[in-house]
């Protein structure tokens, strides 16, 4: 297709502004980027209404397959299909190469940081990171001090959120080191897309991601306790009321392992067993999708019924591996985040490949003063929250909301950070048979066992509401399949 004549595409565009924000599909002048041309041609060749028809058939498939998530805080209709967009998001081989190297470097450093903090804490002694920042973190677990974890791997499963800025460069917005979710949507999206656009998919040469469950299983197996050659690996879920329950069942089925709840587990003599119809069976590796707080009522929150009493002692005794380790939330604290580039330099003696977003620490007097004076321009986040909760988006906030946040910041500055309101990239989405740009991020999934493994892809999350900057599924976000090109 001639880049100068995107004319036949014009009827496809709805309200499609091109401004300083990076558009994934179109260059500032309006022409389609080279990698998107085949997609654009396909779209232009489809008869009117065809996209809508395909979308409806996918909707129905999602519903009957029960690919749904649960929304908290709503009385009825708590089960909803995960909103998605039919058009793939394309990432070139060069772009992916940089992401892959950058994430490998970052996760390696974060893991070294966790190991260090929970053993000798050299990085604190060397004053690279302030002591009080680490020890005041809500997710720091003193019980982990001096505890040897298998292969020194604290974070076996990670999902990091990337944004693309106006320059086209990817930056890391946050790391999810506790129980990152969404990988089942990445895999489901791919299956749906192969069925919806088979020819287009074949034409592009997209790198496969379908082996993720096998990689995850191999990662978990590599972390099994010594002397357990045929480890019994299980996935621990909070249960059917958890918003990610679909994902837990999906992964357990794909890996062929048992999906257990806390009430299925018992410990005896520091060994974890699960209750089966044949009696008790020993458990060797637990892929944990329950937060630290709820994992063991004897060590963490005593009012939790989701975990297993005695689990932590069995873990400390080395009789069971729990992944991710406890206390990893320390390293995805949004204030600790600001120090990740310094960690990379400290542990690896390298320059960070993927930059951070500029971050103001509100515990620093100077930075707090600046932030409080500029609340209407900044995004303020609570450090321990995720899922888009506990957030103030300055430019879209009311005076009342800003005053409320200012009060909270003054009361507990350590609990907040601020970042500039980012103009991150937009990708075309299908809105009533036309294309309109929506903000997107990218969450690749990183596995860390013998070595760091990243399946080429990830979940592209979309802020489906027009103009919205929030991509979290709990706040009306959707997703797209992400195609990493050969």
């Amino acid at each position, binding site marked *: 297709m001639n880049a100068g004549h995107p004319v036949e595409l014009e009827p496809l565009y709805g309200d499609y502004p091109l401004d300083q924000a990076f558009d994934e599909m179109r260059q500032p002048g309006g022409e389609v980027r080279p990698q998107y041309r085949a997609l654009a041609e396909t779209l232009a060749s489809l008869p009117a209404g065809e996209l809508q028809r395909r979308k409806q058939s996918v909707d129905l498939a999602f519903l009957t397959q*029960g690919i749904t998530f649960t929304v908290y805080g709503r009385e009825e209709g708590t089960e909803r299909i995960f909103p998605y967009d039919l058009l793939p998001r394309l990432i070139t081989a060069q772009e992916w190469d940089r992401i892959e190297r950058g994430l490998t470097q970052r996760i390696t450093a974060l893991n070294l940081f966790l190991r260090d903090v929970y053993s000798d804490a050299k990085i604190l002694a060397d004053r690279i990171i302030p002591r009080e920042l680490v020890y005041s973190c809500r997710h720091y677990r003193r019980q982990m001090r001096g505890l040897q974890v298998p292969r020194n791997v604290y974070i076996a499963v990670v999902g990091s959120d990337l944004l693309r800025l106006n320059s086209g460069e990817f930056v890391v917005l946050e790391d999810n080191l506790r129980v990152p979710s969404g990988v089942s949507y990445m895999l489901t999206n791919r299956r749906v897309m192969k069925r919806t656009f088979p020819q287009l998919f074949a034409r592009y040469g997209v790198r496969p991601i379908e082996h993720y469950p096998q990689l995850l299983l191999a990662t978990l197996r590599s972390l099994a306790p010594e002397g357990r050659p045929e480890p019994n690996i299980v996935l621990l879920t909070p249960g059917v009321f958890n918003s990610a329950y679909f994902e837990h069942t999906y992964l357990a*089925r794909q890996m062929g392992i048992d999906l257990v709840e806390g009430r*299925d587990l018992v410990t005896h003599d520091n060994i974890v067993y699960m*209750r089966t119809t044949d009696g*008790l069976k020993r458990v060797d590796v637990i892929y944990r999708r329950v937060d630290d707080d709820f994992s063991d009522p004897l060590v963490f929150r005593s009012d939790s019924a989701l975990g297993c009493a005695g689990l932590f002692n069995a873990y400390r005794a080395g009789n069971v591996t729990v992944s991710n380790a406890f206390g990893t939330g320390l390293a995805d604290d949004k204030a600790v985040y600001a120090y990740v580039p310094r960690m990379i330099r400290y542990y690896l003696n390298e320059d960070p490949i993927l930059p951070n977003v500029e971050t103001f620490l509100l515990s620093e007097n100077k930075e707090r003063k600046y932030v409080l004076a500029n609340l209407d321009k900044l995004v303020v986040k609570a450090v321990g929250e995720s899922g888009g909760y506990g957030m103030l988006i300055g430019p879209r906030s009311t005076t009342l909301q800003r005053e409320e946040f200012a009060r909270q910041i003054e009361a507990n500055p350590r609990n907040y950070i601020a970042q500039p309101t980012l103009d991150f990239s937009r990708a075309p989405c299908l809105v009533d048979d036309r294309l309109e740009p929506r903000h997107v991020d990218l969450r690749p999934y990183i596995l860390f066992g013998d070595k760091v493994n990243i399946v080429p892809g990830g979940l592209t999350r979309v802020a489906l509401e027009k103009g919205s900057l929030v991509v979290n599924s709990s706040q009306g976000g959707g997703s797209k399949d992400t195609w990493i090109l050969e």
Partner: protein
Amino acid sequence: MLSRVADSLYWMSRYLERAENTVRLLDVTMSLMLDAGGSNLEMRWQRMVAALGKPAEMDWNGSIEEMAQKLVYDHLSPASVIYCLNGARENARQVREEISTEMWQRLNRLYHQMHLPRAQSQFSANIGDQLSTVIDGIYLFKGTTDTSMIHGQGWQFIRLGRYLERAYATATLLEVYQSELFPPQERESSGYLHLELVGLLRSCTAFEAYCQVYTADLSPERMLEFLVLNRDFPHAIHYCAEGMRQAVDGIQQTGGRRPPEELKAAIGKLCAMLGYTSINEILAGDTAGFLHNIRGQCLHIHELIYRFYVHYSIQSALTV
């Protein structure tokens, strides 16, 4: 297999069997009401409710449409069809990784069909269609189960739940009906008694099967013999008891490091009783008591299943 998973599969299966039984009884009762010409509506409704185990809040209010709607759609009543379907799906959802995707989709589709707003609002206009939707959905689910799921422990627990529920339901139904099968005097030779008898057989999908064995000559003795003692008909109590025995044997074969002695004894006792009692002995004695005793044994078997597979003490299992 995890105890909790076995428990969920067992209940998923029981709930579906219960929904199927309720729908069929409702269908038969409603068609009998047509012929009764308006009389005895209440008696028939109460009899059906008794055969369903006398659930609360199902007292006759004079309108069959309203009562049927309640029995199908009152999601607060544990006796309703929708309650059973919700329960089955909820149990299936909790063991999503154990059942096949085909099974899940089948059940999910039925669930969504029942939850369509128009399904409820237009119920009274399409009662027959709606009831067939449920029965068809459940049949398809059972077929999918048998063809797409590995015939291991999970499958055996599904069978165990199905046969236990069915044996109990058939025994309850016969216990309620048995007194009416033998009217004290020759009440009538008109077609009404015939309709009642056919209705009873149809409540167990047994009419055609009965005719194949005994011809269309409907005699209460033979009907009881067929529904209680027949070995080959899937809704007969004896068949169900043998089904339970096979399921427990199957469970033991695929895992079975602990032999479930007490459970096997209880099921074996029921099978022996049904295998070595003749219909004349049953009719000569306390027929209602005999059927009641079967229900009691079913409840006992249920308890043993729980005690052995689900709620066992840790001490008893540590040696494994």
